[in-house]
């Protein structure tokens, strides 16, 4: 056990680096039994990155199969398994935990001046629960997989011969991980805020993650009971969703989407959280409409719960319900528009630094706006009847849900990388990869909008020959995307070991988490925190932290305190 010395050192002859959270204890054991939220955050990040590459591999295989109208590399049955596994891995193993459990764990306690989250052991347990759920799901994938799609619609999911039960149980278990993280964050924000840090001084990241946690806590149990019922139905045939005994498959869809629609906000709200931090930092300007952004997060969390029925427009749901759900779904767009307006308002007349995280913000806002607008179109019942279960829907939700989350994940990775490891990456390669990713993403999904509008249904293994050109374009885009990810993997791995060292605040951000050394010591700060300025405040007199020159490739040597030089 060591603790960093808080006393100011007077230029020792041999500089002794203060211990940080990465090197204060070593060995595998010190990681597996850690209760440090920063280490747990990193462990989550490692797992979700692995899940991202696994899900991405499935996606590439799907795209390669769709290069030709008939069999290219796999049989129809394998294809069915492939898109199911792609959905399950990406949603349950990557997108839901990625930002809250990964970055949220790392920075949220630091942003509120806390030493740790409220329940550190529950936090570690949450990681193990995630691993256990992932193990269940992976076991099921290896031993037969599932061919139902990630939505597990009954009656198909209760009659298929593939291994749905372990995958359903995997989703059930991972749900508890999500709940544990949510409970932890809510209690942390309520009870661990530093002195003077009132609700209206919380960084916007914290507000959004708080709203996300509310959804995680309230929605996930319903998914839990739904997948449990489906697993019981598949294993024992209780008939709860089986029309032969009086059951109704539409009830499954109601219960499934009661979780899975708000789950979209479990993925998108954290993305918005990241962007609300990045925009003021790189625009060098106070956030515009702090309260509007903060409260609209809570608004999305609430209204998102009233919208689930838009997935049931063609499932036999009543026209009355379809109308109600359609209108409420559109209201979600209002809250999102409030945020977009405020981010753009922040950029207006700002001194914008076009660094890598900001490049991802540009990709994000574009995907969010166009994904959101197609969403409002899809919420129109009469239009949805045409687009239901076509590639238009696929492209829509990949834009808004996947695109936004992915952009935010990568933005957060590049934004907090210096804080996490005390080193920085090559800015040039960062921008190259960002352009690859954003271009690749558009090239993949814009053809799918067109395909869907032309009537190509989702989840089909073969298609009429006239759809081939657009499918090839989409696959080409996907390879661009894959290439972008590999580039990031390479230069970030290099940066991890050989990247230039940075001081405490390389971006010159006003976020509270940058007050700690990089990487932070075990208990986050070397001195007690005072919250004398509002978050995202770039106007106040006196000290305005500037960006460090080494980030832009300058010749400055390592300083231990970039902000105050």
């Amino acid at each position, binding site marked *: 056990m060591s603790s960093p010395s808080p006393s100011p050192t007077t230029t020792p002859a041999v500089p002794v680096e203060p211990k940080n959270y990465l090197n204060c204890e070593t060995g595998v054991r010190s990681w597996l039994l850690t209760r440090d939220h920063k280490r747990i955050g990193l462990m989550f990040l490692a797992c979700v990155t692995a899940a991202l590459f696994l899900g991405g591999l499935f996606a590439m295989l799907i795209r390669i199969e769709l290069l030709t109208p008939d069999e290219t590399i796999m049989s129809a049955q394998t294809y069915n398994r492939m898109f199911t596994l792609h959905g399950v891995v990406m949603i349950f193993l990557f997108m839901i935990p990625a930002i809250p459990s990964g970055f949220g764990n790392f920075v949220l306690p630091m942003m509120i001046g806390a030493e740790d989250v409220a329940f550190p052991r*529950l936090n570690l347990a949450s990681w193990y629960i995630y691993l256990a759920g992932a193990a269940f799901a992976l076991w099921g994938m290896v031993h037969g997989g599932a061919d139902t799609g990630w939505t597990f619609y009954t009656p198909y999911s209760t009659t298929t011969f593939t291994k749905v039960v372990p995958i359903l149980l995997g989703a059930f278990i991972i749900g508890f991980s999500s*709940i544990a993280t949510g*409970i932890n964050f809510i*209690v942390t924000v309520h009870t*661990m805020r530093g002195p003077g840090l009132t609700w209206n001084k919380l960084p916007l990241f914290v507000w959004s993650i708080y709203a996300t946690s509310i959804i995680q806590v309230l929605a996930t149990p319903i998914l839990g009971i739904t997948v449990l019922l489906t697993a019981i139905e598949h294993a024992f045939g209780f008939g709860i969703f089986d029309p032969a*005994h009086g059951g109704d498959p539409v009830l499954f869809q109601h219960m499934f989407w009661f979780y899975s629609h708000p789950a979209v906000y479990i993925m998108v709200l954290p993305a918005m959280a990241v962007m609300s931090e990045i925009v003021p930092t790189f625009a060098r300007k106070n956030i515009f409409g702090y309260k509007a952004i903060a409260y609209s997060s809570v608004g999305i969390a609430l209204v998102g719960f009233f919208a689930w029925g838009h997935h049931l427009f063609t499932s036999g749901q009543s026209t009355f319900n379809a109308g109600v759900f359609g209108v409420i779904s559109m209201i979600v767009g209002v809250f999102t528009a409030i945020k977009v307006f405020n981010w753009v308002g922040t950029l207006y007349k700002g001194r914008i630094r076009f660094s890598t995280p900001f490049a991802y913000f540009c990709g994000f806002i574009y995907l969010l706006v166009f994904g959101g607008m197609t969403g409002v179109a899809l919420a129109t019942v009469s239009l949805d009847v045409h687009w239901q279960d076509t590639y238009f829907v696929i492209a829509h939700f990949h834009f808004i849900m996947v695109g936004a989350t992915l952009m935010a994940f990568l933005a957060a990775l590049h934004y907090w990388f210096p804080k996490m490891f005390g080193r920085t990456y090559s800015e040039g390669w960062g921008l190259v990869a960002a352009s690859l990713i954003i271009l690749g993403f558009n090239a993949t999904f814009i053809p799918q909008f067109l395909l869907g509008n032309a009537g190509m249904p989702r989840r089909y293994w073969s298609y009429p020959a006239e759809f081939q050109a657009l499918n090839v374009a989409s696959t080409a885009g996907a390879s661009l995307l894959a290439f972008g990810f590999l580039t990031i993997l390479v230069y970030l791995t290099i940066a991890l070991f050989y990247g230039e060292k940075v001081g405490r605040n390389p971006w010159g951000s006003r976020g509270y988490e940058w007050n700690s050394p990089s990487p932070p010591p075990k208990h986050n700060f070397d001195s007690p925190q005072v919250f004398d300025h509002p978050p995202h405040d770039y106007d106040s007199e006196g000290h305005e932290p500037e960006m460090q020159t080494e980030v832009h490739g300058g010749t400055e040597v390592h300083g231990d305190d970039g902000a105050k030089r």
Partner: protein
Amino acid sequence: MAEHVEAHEHGHEEHHPRLQHHFQDMRTQQHAARLGMWLFLATEILLFGGLFCAYSYYRTLFPEAWKECSKHLNRPFGLLETFDLITSSFTMVLAIHFTRIGNRKLSVLMLLATATMGFGFLGLHGYEYYHEWLEGALPGKYYHFEEVTATGAPMFYAVYFLMTGLHSAHVFIGGVVLLVLTYLTAKGNYDASYDHPLDLGGLYWHLVDLIWIFLFPLLYLV
């Protein structure tokens, strides 16, 4: 859920030995533990909420089957089980009360009584299940109960077994937690200044009671 058992060495003398380093004071720690528990209970309520949704869905679809099947459940047994759980909730609050006024012996006794009533409930319910098994009043494709032939009767039993089954699983977990708490109380871990685990265990047990308060009229007294 609860994060409190570990005593943390700390520089400041005035701190309670059970205070963890990252909390300001004991009051905040207890507030955090309680809030965490309430959030957990909210997830439990929503977990059952899914089943309540299925219940109301199928009750609306098959009102006749619901009436007839409910008559075939053992009402006096349901009443007995209700009294059993209410009384156990009562002994649970008394156990905490006795810990707070420093009477450890009575506290242990009350906890034991609570756990006994919990497992007693499982026994009573097991007996009911056994009878339904004999009659063939079972869910879905296993249904072969001759006295009720209304459409949807298998759905009633599916919902009945799932709801009471999930509830019984909770009673079982609660019973085990109570036994552990009994042991720790007897060992002298809790007193007037520190009883958070008892407090949280009690909250969980009351939730189990609370769910049953709704299950009883919904299933037995249609």
